[in-house]
């Protein structure tokens, strides 16, 4: 396993680190690339109320009948699959399957069958059973730096195609987070504490998006999640193109 950041920081005496305290950089720790920090989030919701209806994405519960209330009521329920730190894109979707083109529907479906197939044999339970396109697990729980490595969009696509609604990790690699939002394939949620060691593969969990809460019904424990913020509506819309149309940023006109 990778050397942890803390142990490697003190390993070499030749390095000196000068940290400038700059509290203004605080917001950068949030991976939300579509910050709307200057205005109330209700602005977003008001806008949606008048926008044309959109396809309700897979991740949304049937109960959320209108876009206005979706964020408050969206929840995901299912069994979880638990992985550790630094799960790179080669483990999420090995390079040999990158010949599959995500924008082709039949190949999109096939990408789902290979989701997380690159995990080493230390993971005895397969994420997707052989000859299946979908996983029995709809929520992935991970440690730090999930999705590091290559920029392949096949990674969030494979998870989404396998039926994953959300990943809950301590942190994400930048490109994976952005690709998840841009495609709207999965919600990349961040936990406030390390839960990958408290949850087991097969536990029954519920994520309440509006309350930023993960409930593990098997253990009876609840965990606070970091709010998905402004990336939420983009994922809910089904990605950046759908969101931009819905928000009026890209005017849709007659052909």
């Amino acid at each position, binding site marked *: 396993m990778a050397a942890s950041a803390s142990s490697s920081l003190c390993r070499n005496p030749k390095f000196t680190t000068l940290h400038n305290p700059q509290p203004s950089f605080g917001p950068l720790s949030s991976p939300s690339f579509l910050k709307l920090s200057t205005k109330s989030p209700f602005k977003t919701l008001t806008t949606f109320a008048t926008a044309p209806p959109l396809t309700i994405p897979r991740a949304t519960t049937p109960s959320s009948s209108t876009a206005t209330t979706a964020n408050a009521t969206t929840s995901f329920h299912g069994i979880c699959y638990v992985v550790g730190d630094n799960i790179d894109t080669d483990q999420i979707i090995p390079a040999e399957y990158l010949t599959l083109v995500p924008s082709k529907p039949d190949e999109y479906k096939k990408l789902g069958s290979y989701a997380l197939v690159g995990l080493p044999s230390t993971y005895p339970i397969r994420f997707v059973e052989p000859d299946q396109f979908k996983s029995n697990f709809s929520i992935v729980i991970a440690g730090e730096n999930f999705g590091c490595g290559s920029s392949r969009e096949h990674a969030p696509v494979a998870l989404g195609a396998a039926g994953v609604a959300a990943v809950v990790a301590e942190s994400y690699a930048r490109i994976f987070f952005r690709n998840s939002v841009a495609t709207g394939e999965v919600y990349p949620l961040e936990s406030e504490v390390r839960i990958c060691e408290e949850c087991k593969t097969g536990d029954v969990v519920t994520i309440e998006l509006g309350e930023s809460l993960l409930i593990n019904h098997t253990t009876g424990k609840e965990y606070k999640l970091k709010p998905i913020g402004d990336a939420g509506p983009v994922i809910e819309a089904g990605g950046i193109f759908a969101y931009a149309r819905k928000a009026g*940023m890209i005017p849709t006109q007659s052909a």
Partner: protein
Amino acid sequence: MAASSAIASSSTAFINKMDVGHSALSSSPSSFSIQKAKKRFSRKIVSVMAPQQSERKPSTTGSVKTALTMTEKIFARASEKPQLSPGENVWVNVDTLMTHDVCGPGVFGTFKKEFGENAKVWDREKVVVIPDHYIFTTDERANRNVDILRDFCTEQNIKYFYDIKDLGNFKANPDYKGVCHVALAQEGHCRPGEVLLGTDSHTCTAGAFGQFATGIGNTDAGFVLGTGKLLLKVPPTLRFVMDGEMPNYLLAKDLILQIIGEISVSGATYKAMEFVGTTVESLTIEERMTLCNMVVEAGGKNGVIPADSTTFKYLEDKTSVAYEPVYSDGQARFLSEYRFDVSKLEPLVAKPHSPDNRGLARECKDVKIDRVYIGSCTGGKTEDFLAAAKVFLASGKKVKVPTFLVPATQKVWVDVYSLPVPGSGGKTCSQIFEEAGCDTPASPSCGACLGGPRDTYARLNEPQVCVSTTNRNFPGRMGHKEGQIYLASPYTAAASALTGYVTDPREFLQ
């Protein structure tokens, strides 16, 4: 004509565009318009709406100029803003968009779906398409993906498409280059001060030229293809000051492995990594490329090195496009600064299975290895092969394990077969490799760096131990999940090939 007229350049906050959309839509009765909207609106984008803009121009406001890092300056210019700060999201004008055979078909699929079947790319001279990943394979889908690239480039009249048709003999394809990041540099697409986006995480390599370069996904690239713009967050900068004379047994690979080991595989997530200091100034362009290439292995958004006479000289015969280098201001704010004395460093490896699992090469001398791989955007450039040849030449011995050589590009391959190795009495790298018992240099491509289709040359199909000049060693990276990859410099890789164990190159170079 591009599929969309550009988004207004100096866009304000994202919310403003939503306000525009709101007011536009709310002018008609909402319940009625919802039904109508579905029929009336096609999915085709013909223009991207201009957001509300401030009339204040920088020249009239006389605003106080704050000091900026070079990455911030590139963002400021590309977003046509006089001022910005880390964390801000800005619409950036893209100078070059690169894609390859693994992501290109998906990018083009997204582009057609979102902009329409008859849409045209925003600028046929700013899109560079480079087949390089899965080329020399009988995998039908991989071959089809190169065909998809060709069809799209023909239809769109893309100026820079480095095609390959004869897979049996790469030399029969004069247009074919090979590994995109090395080809971008060799063909003059990397220029100081510019913005380069690519559908590959190692696009950050081009930061060696003092430009902003980063990897993006298919969907973002599809957006850029139609508009020439992308919403990007301005990263804060970590500064790495490297001083001291580089010992003759070290290469840039050792420097970046040192840094990644120091800050971890997520230590630079969302951040720019700027490399300065007398050591960096002494590095060649190819060595600077190695340094910037692996910033993504620390999670970095981009790596960047100030352009200097070395940069300008390299570019002299490669581009006629005017460029304008930018430099960090003296008072620019850096998130943190790391300093080290290069003269005291030792040859390093990254042990399995993470690029930050740093170890001294000499401390791994008992690790028995099965093979050595020299290639990729990280370690398959001309100077990487010259470095390996230098070790073989110094030892005069033969390799003890299979040693695979994959030149990054056709140009590198020609260099391997034609450039004399200093101190060898005129021998080429290829002659030295042959005398040392290495495998014959293979056709240029990404090769086995990322495993690839099963029939990829030198792919790790058994659970073997490999010393490799590539960039990642996560489980399964080069093929087999139980394979063990030790990332190392070309010096260390060649020294290890000679002994069959992970070996410090000082055993041969001193």
